[in-house]
């Protein structure tokens, strides 16, 4: 307590010192000798404070303080003594100079022996600063602030000296007793304002290729999974291990598939830093891996699977090894190569070569546009990081910005509640958000409104609206592709118009399609997408559907989205796709998912009646020739496991002739595999002649169905040579939907199939071996 009181006395006297000296001389008629006693007294108060303080606080700013205090004490006593013996006012006027010089010494000393004084102060205010990814920036900023103060003290001391030597007493008092205090006040206020502005910006961004071992504090959290975290120190250590491994191997390039985002970024960064080309693939189908993998290629994964992963290195095995000497360096973003794979809308996997500079330039743009919104948040994902949008948003962005990310995807809408207490950035997609909107009826009580991104396909406005009701945030959509990266963004509450990223230059290319040039597209001529576009004067644009969505039916041009929108106009349709078909003639076919009103309206109506209802509606707007000729009413549109709806899959569905004996309600397809939801009405011919009073689907009908569907959807040969391991354990009953799953391996001509109930109960299954002759 005494020490605090002493400090207050010392501070008050120091501040008032110029005024007291002036008053003493001018009004109270005191001689410089008498006044010098005040300075000497002040020195004693200071001495008393200093000895107290040292006993208490030996660490921290201790050494700098000692230097400051002793020098100040010596100068004070010296000047006081000189003033006393010479009875000269000049020596008393040196006091403000001394104070400035001692502060200068103190501040400069902390710059030399870091951390600087301003950073120590910042640490007192925010204890988490030490392990924050922002720390390097804050430290740099504080050093600068400390330097500015040093410069201020130099100037202030000089002016104070000048006023002491050549100015009048009045001027000396005015400057040192008032003006210099005002200047200190102004400087503090300006610094405070600058700091506030800086605090609202994301500063921890470092380009991935420029990250150094000490770019982040060792304790900074890189990723988390429940309670467990990996820190920057762990990250550096893990990358070093993988790099040692890669550099000890002749194999290159490396195929990379890791489900865990942390393992993925460790492996990817290791490859980039070690100069190994990385081929990133989400698809790990045996046939696909065989197709892309050459003998000299390496393959690293965290989840081994079947034959495809034979010879693959499991990353956990490398990381489990003993610690190695740190191996880490910046790398050349223009030289680092990657390959990505896209399925596109047509379905065939296609490889897209990339330079890392393309990602790096896009990251820079994303941080510029969205970075400040991400301050202090954690990154969550519902999408696959082997595709470009997931790669950028859920793996590279956290790495470049130092935001912690969750190692595992959020798979189910219901999981979102579990992160309601966090400040979150969620990288999502229409497939997830649609399910969220459909499955959630109450708003989630987020403590902080999350920021949600969506990409991969258009997000219907009504889904965005529902998600806003659930999460409080109107989803930010990103438009782009594997080839182009991100092109533009929008929140559909502001209309359907897209705002391009600043670096993207839009123009209309071939076939009225959007052409993009940007710093992350290597080709100087840019890339022409398959999307029809209307570009406004201010550069924003409207997408008008896919170019392949305009088809010719018997020489008549028709836009598929137009027919789809007309069907939606009835208010009975939840989702619809219209596809062109070729038989004896060209025609359109419509796959429709009815909404609740539609299901109610057409309940128990024959299909022909429903067809005719829609045909009649369309007849008002379009010619008979381009009106759909075939119709399917489904529970959901055919899609792949990513939720992507492909024209090819819908056409394949229409390739299965409509039959009164069975109905397809759902279809999910991916290479070599198809899952169908089927129902067999009680009027089905399949039941005839079996047990008239108790209808169940004969085994032969089940096998027959399987063969027919496998031929239509998986392209199996015509003849079945053998049936193996078949089991019929539970009957398929009329009107009870069954799930048929079929997997076909062309190499062995074997098709495995299983019928199950929706809740999973197995009904039957087995393996069909097709006649190899067909393949020969």
């Amino acid at each position: 307590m005494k020490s605090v009181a002493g400090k207050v006395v010392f501070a008050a006297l120091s501040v008032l010192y110029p005024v007291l000296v002036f008053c003493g001389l001018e009004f109270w008629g005191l001689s410089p000798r008498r006044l010098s006693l005040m300075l000497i007294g002040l020195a004693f108060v200071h001495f008393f404070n200093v000895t107290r303080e040292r006993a208490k606080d030996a660490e921290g700013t201790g050494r700098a303080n000692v230097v400051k205090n002793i020098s100040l004490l010596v100068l004070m006593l010296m000047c006081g003594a000189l003033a006393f013996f010479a009875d000269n006012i000049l020596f008393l006027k040196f006091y403000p100079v001394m104070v400035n010089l001692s502060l200068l010494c103190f501040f400069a000393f902390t710059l030399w022996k870091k951390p600087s004084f301003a950073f120590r102060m910042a640490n007192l205010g925010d204890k988490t600063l030490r392990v924050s990814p922002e720390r390097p920036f804050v430290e740099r900023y504080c050093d600068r602030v400390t330097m500015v103060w040093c410069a201020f003290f130099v100037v202030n001391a000089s002016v104070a000296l000048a006023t002491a030597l050549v100015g009048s007493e009045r001027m000396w008092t005015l400057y040192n007793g008032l003006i210099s205090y005002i200047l200190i006040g102004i400087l503090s206020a300006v610094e405070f304002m600058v700091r506030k502005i800086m605090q609202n910006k994301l500063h921890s961004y470092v380009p991935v290729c420029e990250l150094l071992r000490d770019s982040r504090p060792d304790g900074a959290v890189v990723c988390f999974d429940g309670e467990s975290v990996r820190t920057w120190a762990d990250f550096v250590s893990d990358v070093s291990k993988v790099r040692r491994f890669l550099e000890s191997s002749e194999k290159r390039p490396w195929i990379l598939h890791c489900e865990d985002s942390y393992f993925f970024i460790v492996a990817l960064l290791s490859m980039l830093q070690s100069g190994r080309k990385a081929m990133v693939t989400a698809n790990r189908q045996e046939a696909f891996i065989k197709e892309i993998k050459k003998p000299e290629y390496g393959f690293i994964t965290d989840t081994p699977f079947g034959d495809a992963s034979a010879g693959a290195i499991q990353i956990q095995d490398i990381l489990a090894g003993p610690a190695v000497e740190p191996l880490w360096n910046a790398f050349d973003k223009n030289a680092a190569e990657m390959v990505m794979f896209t399925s596109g809308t047509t379905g065939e996997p296609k490889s897209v070569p990339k330079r890392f500079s393309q990602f790096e330039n896009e990251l820079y743009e994303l941080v510029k546009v969205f970075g400040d919104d991400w301050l202090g948040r954690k990154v969550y994902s519902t999408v696959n990081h082997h595709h470009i949008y997931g790669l950028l948003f859920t793996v590279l962005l956290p790495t470049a910005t130092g935001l912690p990310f969750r190692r595992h995807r959020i798979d189910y809408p219901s999981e979102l509640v579990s992160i309601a207490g966090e400040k979150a950035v969620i990288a999502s997609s229409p497939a997830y958000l649609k399910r969220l909107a459909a499955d959630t009826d109450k708003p989630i009580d987020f403590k902080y409104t999350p920021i949600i991104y969506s990409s991969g396909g258009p997000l219907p406005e009504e889904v965005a609206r529902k998600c806003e009701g659930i999460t409080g945030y109107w989803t930010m959509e990103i438009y782009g592709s594997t080839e182009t990266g991100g092109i533009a963004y929008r929140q559909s509450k502001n209309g359907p118009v897209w705002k391009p990223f600043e670096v993207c230059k839009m123009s209309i290319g071939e076939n009225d399609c959007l052409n993009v040039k940007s710093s992350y597209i290597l080709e100087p001529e840019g890339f022409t997408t398959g999307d029809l576009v209307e570009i406004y004067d201010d550069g924003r644009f409207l997408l008008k559907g896919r170019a392949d969505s305009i088809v010719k039916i018997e020489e008549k041009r028709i836009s598929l989205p137009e027919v789809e929108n007309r069907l939606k106009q009835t208010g009975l349709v939840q989702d619809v796709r219209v596809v062109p078909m070729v038989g004896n003639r060209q025609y359109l076919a419509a796959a429709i998912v009815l909404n609740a009103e539609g299901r109610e309206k057409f309940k128990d109506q024959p299909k022909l009646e429903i067809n005719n209802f829609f045909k009649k509606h369309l007849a008002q707007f379009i010619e008979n020739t381009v009106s759909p000729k075939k119709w399917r009413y489904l529970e959901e549109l055919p899609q792949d496991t990513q939720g992507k709806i492909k024209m090819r899959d819908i056409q394949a569905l229409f390739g299965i002739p409509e039959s009164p004996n069975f109905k397809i309600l759902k279809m999910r397809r991916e290479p070599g595999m198809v899952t169908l939801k089927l129902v067999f009405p009680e009027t089905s011919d399949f039941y005839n002649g079996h047990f008239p009073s108790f209808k169940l689907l004969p085994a032969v009908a089940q096998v027959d169905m399987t063969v027919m569907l496998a031929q239509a959807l998986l392209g199996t040969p015509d003849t079945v040579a053998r049936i193996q391991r078949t089991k019929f354990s539970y009957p398929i009953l009329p009107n009870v939907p069954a799930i048929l799953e079929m997997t076909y391996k062309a190499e062995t001509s074997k098709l495995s199939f299983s019928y199950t109930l929706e809740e999973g109960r197995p009904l039957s299954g087995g393996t069909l071996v097709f006649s190899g002759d067909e393949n020969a």
Partner: protein
Amino acid sequence: MDELKNRIKEMIVTALELEDVTAADIVEDAPLFGESERGLGLDSIDALELGIAIKENFGVSFSAANEDTKKHFYSFDTLAAYISANMPK
């Protein structure tokens, strides 16, 4: 005549790859083409297909220039009558 009618109906369903419509669903006196409550709602391409199928199946041909062709194609009844009258004996 009934047997011929059934053959023609089957031919229409097959040749035009009609779905959700069986021979029994064809209303004999309803217009074949264009929008109507009970008709098939066929279009001009279907007419061409149908003309070819009739020639292949029944040996009856139509002249595209002939105004009467439209009349013959008006409904199933008119078509069946024309085919029946012009079939080579």
